[in-house]
């Protein structure tokens, strides 16, 4: 098996689906000749032509709305939003339209649509190139929201997303693109869109997280091993729907819980995970649920001291774990 980057895994998944199925197309700003601002779609326009890898005008409502239209008419569009921060103008098309089309037509219509967007900070991207606003979509029934954290999942989940008959929000951590490498088998496979993954087994503290934070959690977990604490790291992967059973199982097993994310905490994935545990693990908890995330400020600032202040680092995670261990 080859070691490839997270970015390469996404590209391979898209390319293979496009080879397999002529109805798959890519639509977005700069996806063509430039191959996207991060290079995810590099080479695809050359291979599949200008229509199937289509540079759109600078208009996100257009990207989502046209993709929905194409999906009505038999295509399987992959819409790229250049940064998750810039998905906001497309919210009406995604939330009012894509998410409700199957339901409102009583199953008469459906839109197989993937919306891809890079999220996350720590790249000097400042307020508008660092956000993690997946929570907004995780509230919305009719959407699937996934965030792979490894190259293996990145490929398996983009393939599953393309084949899914309904809208899937597929968010990629931009710092993972080149920083995260991993083994990916040749050829076709899918990873289910509604299952969490145990990234590390343990029985002392369960850590629930997703995206780049999975790697930070794994790093912090290792630091507790010398002291005899084994953390279980659960990579949520699917943020809507959450894998309720997996969350409850790990929480019950460990009795102590840390919910981690890069985004600010209020009304977020971490809130939902904590709420599920509060509802369904009452008799199993040995300590209060702890959440760790970004501060409640509008977005990640540019200046390095401010950016560092914002980020949830392995150090901060380690501290939270030690506090929990000591509880």
């Amino acid at each position: 098996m080859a070691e490839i980057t997270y970015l390469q895994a996404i590209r391979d998944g898209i390319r293979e689906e496009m080879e397999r199925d002529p109805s798959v197309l890519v639509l977005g700003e700069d996806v063509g000749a430039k191959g996207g601002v991060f290079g995810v779609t590099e080479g695809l326009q050359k291979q599949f032509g200008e229509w199937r890898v289509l540079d759109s005008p600078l208009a996100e409502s257009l990207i989502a709305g046209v993709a929905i239209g194409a999906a009505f008419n038999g295509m399987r569009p992959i819409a790229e939003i250049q940064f998750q921060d810039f998905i906001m103008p497309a919210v009406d098309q995604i939330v009012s339209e894509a998410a409700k089309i199957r339901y409102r037509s009583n199953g008469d219509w459906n839109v197989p649509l993937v919306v891809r967007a890079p999220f996350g900070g720590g790249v000097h991207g400042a307020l508008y190139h660092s956000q993690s606003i997946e929570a907004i979509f995780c509230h919305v029934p009719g959407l699937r929201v996934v965030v792979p954290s490894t190259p293996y999942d990145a490929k398996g989940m983009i393939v599953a997303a393309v084949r899914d008959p309904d809208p899937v929000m597929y968010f990629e951590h931009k710092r993972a693109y080149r920083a995260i490498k991993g083994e990916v088998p040749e050829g076709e496979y899918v990873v289910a869109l509604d299952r969490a993954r145990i990234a590390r087994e343990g029985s002392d503290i369960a850590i629930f997280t997703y995206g780049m934070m999975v790697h930070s959690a794994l790093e912090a977990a290792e630091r507790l091993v010398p002291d005899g604490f084994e953390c279980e790291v659960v990579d949520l992967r699917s943020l809507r729907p959450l894998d309720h059973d997996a969350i409850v199982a790990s929480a019950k097993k460990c009795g102590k819980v840390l919910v981690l994310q890069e985004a600010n905490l209020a009304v977020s994935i971490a809130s939902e995970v904590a709420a599920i545990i509060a509802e369904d693990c009452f008799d199993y908890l040995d300590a209060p649920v702890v959440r760790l995330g970004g501060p409640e400020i509008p977005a990640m600032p540019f200046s390095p001291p401010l950016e560092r202040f914002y980020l949830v680092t392995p150090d901060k995670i380690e501290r939270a774990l030690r506090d929990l261990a000591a509880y």
Partner: protein
Amino acid sequence: MTVTKADARDEASLDAETLRAMYRHMLRSRLLDERMWVLNRQGRAPFWISGMGHEAVQVAFGMNLRPGYDWVAPYYRDLALTLVLGMTPRDHLLSVLARADDPNSGGRQMPAHYGCRRYNIITTGSSVGTQLLHATGIALASRMRGEDAVTFTSCGEGATSEGDFHEALNFAATCRLAVIFVVENNGFAISVPWEKQMPIPNVADRASAYGVPGIVVDGEDPMACFRVAKEAVTHARRGEGPVLVEAKVLRLTSHSSDDDQRRYRAADELAAEKERDCVARFRSQLEDLGVLTSTIADDMRTDLTRELDRAEEEAEAAPLPEPETAMRHVFGEAAEG
């Protein structure tokens, strides 16, 4: 920009049968529409939003499209259009009575949120203007597969103030997609008159901003509408790109059953509009032309009323959805491995 009015050519180019069919379609929609208001006023239907005054242009386009091959992304006043394409009064009565078998939405949406896969009528939401982009995407797909299907989409003039209008026109024109944008301009967005919505008198004048043909047509003149529809469909089907058609229509009713337009419109203005009503005018026009006799017209009305009565009975008798079915159709089958 071409401003088109009915002229002698129209009368000449349409045979009697077509003209009678047009009238019948218009009347059928009108009678159904009136019935909806009755149901609403009787307290049997909580909501209705009407197409009265908009029928001519819808029928004209409906008759020039190929149902089930061409695509339609309509808006909530397009009752007549859906009927021409093949939907039935029964379908919409099921909807207005919120019955399980309503083909538009299974009683899930408010009435007049049209949709029917069988006729390539996509499902309509309420957020105005979004369908213009869907139509553009549909046409993109047709184009990629090399099909000559055209996509019809419509909205009110109010909806053209939304950003989606601009984004759709711009992209459809840039890619020369076969989309026909029809703006049914009735002069009001609920209570807001067109002068407060836009700085120029014709939406179609915006066509030049996209380098596409813009056509203004009297939406109360069925023959003029038919000619424009035919031209527009031909243009789009030939691969010559999108067209922007603006039909100046009348909103013969309040915005919806929840509105009372007498609160913001003058009584004499409302009275004057009744005079220009396309259905009544078309009937006398066709009688003048000898295409219709008052017997034929009356028989038509009797037939259509009978169809309607039966449809209403059936719809009334049809079951409401089971409560738990509210949980269905959030997602389809999962992705296959």
